[in-house]
């Protein structure tokens, strides 16, 4: 339930520290979050009126929960390291960029570069993600309930991208060791990205990610796996046409 429709009693009951961005600055919010120390009692936070603000809850490094009531601009939850951040709205470009650990859930859609260069943790997008989802990902797990746009997982190095819907053009272009699982149609594959066999360990992996992302009624066996052909790992002039 969005905070602005909660009664006062309901809000008090939640014990969350409420931070209203119409009353306080972004800098105050982020600095308050950065001042948290291990063992802090302020484990639940609620951010009201984000109204598309950029850099909401960036660089948080404590295992707190943060509920953002509304849509956010660029780089929400950037470099998150341990927090569980939920955006009850849509997210602008670069949500969860370079996440280290923790989780981010976007209840709406995400713009381009979602999860860019993420190193760990779980990013769940319950709507669709735009282009370049998981670009240069380095260990993050991303689950998208809807579709993803073109050039997703470009130069993806490590981690897992699970897409329940379709993928746009040039999926996994110049991919390294990241694993991509798409349930729907893939418009086209990028350079050095190929379809691969779903082995038992991949079914287990996908099922685990679906469970963690709260997806029900979908089986791991419905997904196809894509990854690197590893033909471009060491430069060979005979492969130049592939670029």
């Amino acid at each position, binding site marked *: 339930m969005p905070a602005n429709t909660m009664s006062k009693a309901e809000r008090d009951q939640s014990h969350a520290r409420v931070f209203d961005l119409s009353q306080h600055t*972004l*800098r105050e919010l*982020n*600095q308050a979050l*950065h001042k948290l120390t291990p063992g802090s009692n302020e484990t639940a936070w609620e951010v009201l009126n984000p109204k598309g603000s*950029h*850099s909401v809850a*960036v*660089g948080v*490094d404590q295992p707190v929960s943060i509920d953002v009531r509304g849509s956010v*601009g*660029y*780089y929400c939850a*950037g*470099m998150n*390291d341990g927090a569980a951040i939920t955006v009850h709205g849509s997210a602008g*470009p*670069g949500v969860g*960029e*370079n996440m*280290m650990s923790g989780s981010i859930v976007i209840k709406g859609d995400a713009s381009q*570069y979602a999860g*860019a*260069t993420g*190193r760990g943790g779980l990013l769940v997008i319950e709507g669709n993600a735009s282009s*370049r989802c998981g*670009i*240069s990902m*380095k*260990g993050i797990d991303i689950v998208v309930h809807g579709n993803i746009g073109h050039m997703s997982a*470009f*130069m993806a*190095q*490590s981690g897992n991208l699970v897409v329940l819907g379709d993928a746009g053009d040039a999926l996994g272009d*110049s991919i*390294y*060791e990241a694993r991509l699982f798409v349930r729907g149609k893939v418009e086209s594959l990028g350079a050095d990205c190929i379809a691969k066999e779903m082995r038992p360990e991949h079914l287990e992996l996908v099922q685990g990610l679906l469970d963690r992302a709260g997806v029900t009624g979908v089986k791991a066996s419905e997904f196809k796996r894509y990854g690197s052909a590893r033909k471009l*790992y*060491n*430069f060979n*002039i005979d492969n130049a046409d592939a670029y």
Partner: protein
Amino acid sequence: MTYRNPPTTPRKSATFDDYTLSEIRRAAATGIYDIRGAGAKRKLPHFDDLLFLGASISRYPLEGYRERCDTSVVLGSRHARKPIELKIPITIAGMSFGSLSGPAKEALGRGATLSGTSTTTGDGGMTEEERGHSKTLVYQYLPSRYGMNPRDLRRADAIEVVVGQGAKPGGGGMLLGQKISDRVAEMRTLPKGIDQRSASRHPDWTGPDDLEIKILELREITDWEKPIYVKVGGARPYYDTALAVKAGADVVVVDGMQGGTAATQEVFIENVGQPTLACIRPAVQALQDLGMHRKVQLIVSGGIRNGADVAKALALGVDAVSIGTAALVALGDNDPRWEAEYNALGTTAGAYDDWHEGRDPAGITTQDPELMKRVDPIAAGRRLANYLKVMTLEAQTIARACGKNSLHNLEPEDLVALSIEAAAMAGVPLAGTNWIPGKNGF
């Protein structure tokens, strides 16, 4: 006895010179473009084409060795809560761990710290060696984001958003498989032994408006403490500087085409970008037009070799310079003591630039555990500090001769140019004339 007509002396083509011919043969044999390290090697208009006028009847000199000549500089005073204060206006440029060995990175940190200046990470993340041995460390934020993490971001003293570099404006990095040791691979989250093509574009922003938002994010993550630099290659210095300022940079770094790289295509190094000398005045002009000269600091790099280069850059309006290639030479790069080994690699001391191959006899541009033992970080750091001291003294000597009690009081009016090209680029008169090409309609 038969008479022979006198032959002409064999004449080689200026166009198809020996190097060109060798490159055609190399390309034909391998089918791969030439990759090398370092910056542009071609002859370019440079600081050598400028001269200081010194003092005369209308200018009083300061007494050498006695009267004070300030060399300090503050970087990042525009927005950062903790600007950087350096004792000398010469910093160490970004060079990656991976490209350089651990001992070489440590030596750079030690030398810079002894000299009261900063050193910079590179396209491979922050190592304990350099953080531990660098009092002031600038952490690069690169397109590849190798090794990027919020903890290192917070323990850096400044953050440098790298948009490009002088050796290859518009090009990404390259680290070939032979240099990818276990440690390098781990820091970059990639398999050992594969070629690493660092991206040429940032993954999560494009254009100046996005950059402004990206800088906001970095400031928010670091609680507005750290100065934020924006580094560009010498492409469009006027507009790049103006846009970096608009995006919120505290410091703009402009790297000319003589600035080195770990590895890229020879054709890129020699044919893309502008010489350092050509970049300075447009960058300064952009700051002046925005009313931000000396408020946003300008660092220039690419081919800085001695105190005269430092003084000339500062006279043209720069706040500090940065050195890379020269710092490596001070550590021991291309030292003739390894001549036999350079010969075995098909080159000679002073010309060795196959840094990407990882077989550097001097132990600097390598990840070979045996070769890197040749770098004693303490002794090499001391050499770098000595060299920085000499450069500083040289620059002070010139400044005092021009009557300046601070290096930053040097001005374009202290300079003349030896060539029309340099006069036009630097915006100072051709020696012996009052002619500045391009000024006043001429």
